[in-house]
């Protein structure tokens, strides 16, 4: 799942060019070290956020001790480059990651420094983070990742004009109400939901939320734990049947599997009024603002929580998405103490937090209600901040939480369910087999 808003087709192309290079140069994809005993920090490319990161690095470098050099990567090749560099002489000292299962692989390989002691020595820093987010950087009770940018929950984004033209005044809060809305929009001659189905991670968001609503967090926890049969659980099958019901009602139109998110195919449906809504991560707002500024400036963009499922075991306040992204320190770093000091000193510093807010991020830090309520996206940011604070738990996107091979199989099989070439039961069996 892209974790930042400005993924462009050009970037995607560059990503592929880099990936191909990385494929060719397998194992040596990492850039050369900074040399001279300096530290390197690897992060993802993002115009706004990189500026804030650079400022934090500059402030750290102006002090005593080793200097940090910032290296940026685009999304897709980053994971492959990191995977091959960690544990090699080319490893970064501080690296960007997604927490959860993604980070656990590195922790299990003994490649990540334990930050618990440093946080315990600085309780003010530890207490500054939202607990549900810091949890995702915590593996086996020890903190290995420090949240370093905004929270990214998933919610519905809708076109206010389209909904009101179809006679819908408030976004439904129940699944039955949601289905009624879908039928109503269909009756009004618009495609109810835009779905970028050529990228299965957009389809995954429906399964993530529905399983959470139907079965509660234990169901996905069982999947994460690798419990046999967890994928064939009745709640998973029910959730997939609800998705199938949506498809059969024509909620996503007929050609969704050819629609792409990275070239704004689904956003164009939403903003042109040909579709009513899209389920997407919080980066949707800045992304829409970049690509369809008139739509956002005219105040046509609405947002709403994923509805509750009647009779479901889950708490409707639970959210899914990317709790945040994290910085971790490589165990092999030439100066673990200095790298840790950078994270402890700068990730909660007022300048860093303000910088992040200024570029549209909602940092995973407590007590920002006043600060969040300013700027271009104040309304949305307040909504997100409240949503995250009210959430009893924040389930990490499954494609980040699960091991890479299971995640790939899941995305492939899920796209088969959306195409109608696999039944919910077959999906469960295929995934139980893949998870073994």
């Amino acid at each position, binding site marked *: 799942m892209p974790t930042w808003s400005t993924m462009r087709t050009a970037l995607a192309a560059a990503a592929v060019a880099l990936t191909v290079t990385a494929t060719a140069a397998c194992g040596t994809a990492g850039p050369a070290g900074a040399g001279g005993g300096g530290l390197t920090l690897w992060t993802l490319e993002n115009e706004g956020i990189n500026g804030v990161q650079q400022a934090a690095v500059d402030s750290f470098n102006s002090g005593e001790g080793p200097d940090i050099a910032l290296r940026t990567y685009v999304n897709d090749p980053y994971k492959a480059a990191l995977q091959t560099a960690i544990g090699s002489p080319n490893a970064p000292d501080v690296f960007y990651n997604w927490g959860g299962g993604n980070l656990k692989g590195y922790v299990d390989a003994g490649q990540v420094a334990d930050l618990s002691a440093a946080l315990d020595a600085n309780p003010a820093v530890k207490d500054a983070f939202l607990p549900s987010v810091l949890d995702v950087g915590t593996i086996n009770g020890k903190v290995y990742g420090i949240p370093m940018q905004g929270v990214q929950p998933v919610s519905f984004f809708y076109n206010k004009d389209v909904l009101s033209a179809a006679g819908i005044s408030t976004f439904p809060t129940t699944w039955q109400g949601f289905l009624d809305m879908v039928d109503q929009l269909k009756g009004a001659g618009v495609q109810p939901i835009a779905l970028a189905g050529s990228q299965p991670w957009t389809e995954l968001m429906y399964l993530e939320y529905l399983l959470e609503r139907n079965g509660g967090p234990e169901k996905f926890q069982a999947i994460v734990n690798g419990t046999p049969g967890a994928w064939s659980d009745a709640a998973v099958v029910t959730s997939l049947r609800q998705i199938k019901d949506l498809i059969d009602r024509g909620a996503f139109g007929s050609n969704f599997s050819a629609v792409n998110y990275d070239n704004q195919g689904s956003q164009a449906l939403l903003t042109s009024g040909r579709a009513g809504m899209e389920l997407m991560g919080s980066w949707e707002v800045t992304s829409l603002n970049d690509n369809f500024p008139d739509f956002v400036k005219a105040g046509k963009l609405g947002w709403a929580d994923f509805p509750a499922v009647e009779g479901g075991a889950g708490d409707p306040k639970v959210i899914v998405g990317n709790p945040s992204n994290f910085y971790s320190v490589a165990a092999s770093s030439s100066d673990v103490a200095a790298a840790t000091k950078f994270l402890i000193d700068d990730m909660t510093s007022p300048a860093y937090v303000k910088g992040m807010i200024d570029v549209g991020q909602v940092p995973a830090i407590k007590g920002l209600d006043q600060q969040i309520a300013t700027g271009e996206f104040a309304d949305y940011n307040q909504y997100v901040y409240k949503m995250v604070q009210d959430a009893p738990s924040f389930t990490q996107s499954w494609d980040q939480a699960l091991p890479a091979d299971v995640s790939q199989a899941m995305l492939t099989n899920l*796209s088969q369910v959306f195409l109608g070439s696999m039944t919910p039961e077959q999906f469960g069996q295929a995934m139980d087999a893949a998870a073994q």
Partner: protein
Amino acid sequence: MSGASHVDVARPGFGWVVPALVFFALFALVPMLGLIYLSFTAYDGLNPPVWVGMQNWQALAGDQLFLDSLRLSGMLTLLSWLLQTAVALPLGVYLAGKQRTRAVLAAIFFVPQLMSGAAIAVLWGTLFDPNFGLASVLGPLVGVPDGNFIGNPSLAFYVILFVISWQFMPFHTLLYQGATRAIPESLYEAATLDGAGRWRQFRSVTVPQLRDTIITSGVLIVVGSLTYFEIVLILTNGGPGTATRILPLHMYIEGFRSFQMGYAAALAVVLLVIGTALSLVITRVTGYRQMTSQREGM
């Protein structure tokens, strides 16, 4: 033919091939050996490779995606060769004419060759957007009312075939153009004297004279189609579902997305063997290796 070996031509000695051999050993043989070793290991790129014996190779037989991808790659290779040859050969012969209009057309036809594969994939991805792209306009005219080409499992493969061919046809056209220009005028003059018309000349002079070019171009297309994947990666990412997951893409996904490098190495070895075998078979069956002259008696 045997007489030729007795002719004492001063050929360069073995020393001349040493640099090339060293290069080949370093950048082809050594990685290949490494690849074969990896195919017997479980390796995630993070932890050291662990020897697992035949496990990856046994897994191949039970991997339906592998069998499907093998079939798709075979189809892509065969159809690419047919389609590209069927278009590039006549086009190259046509463009071999000396007229100025043909020179201009040749320059235009060559444009796709100048673009990077990634750019081409992004371009066609936008054109094939079912709601706002060219697909939404042309789709209804050809029986696809919702413009769903790349999202339809039975059509997406042909879109891939089309875009890949679109990219590489100019190159093969160029090969045929150059080769046609190298055919001696005298052959056509003689054919004309014998009363051969244009079609007869094409069939009995041009095509036989292009024999070696057809084989060269064929080997390039066959081996290229087997290993090529960047357009598929960007345009459909192997989807919808697994409808366009060709063998090299399956290898890439297993290796660099699932981090099953050992299994991906086994897939790579399969690709390597098939590619080498195919090019050997083609050159042997067609007699290309003998490099017999097409101009005996001239």
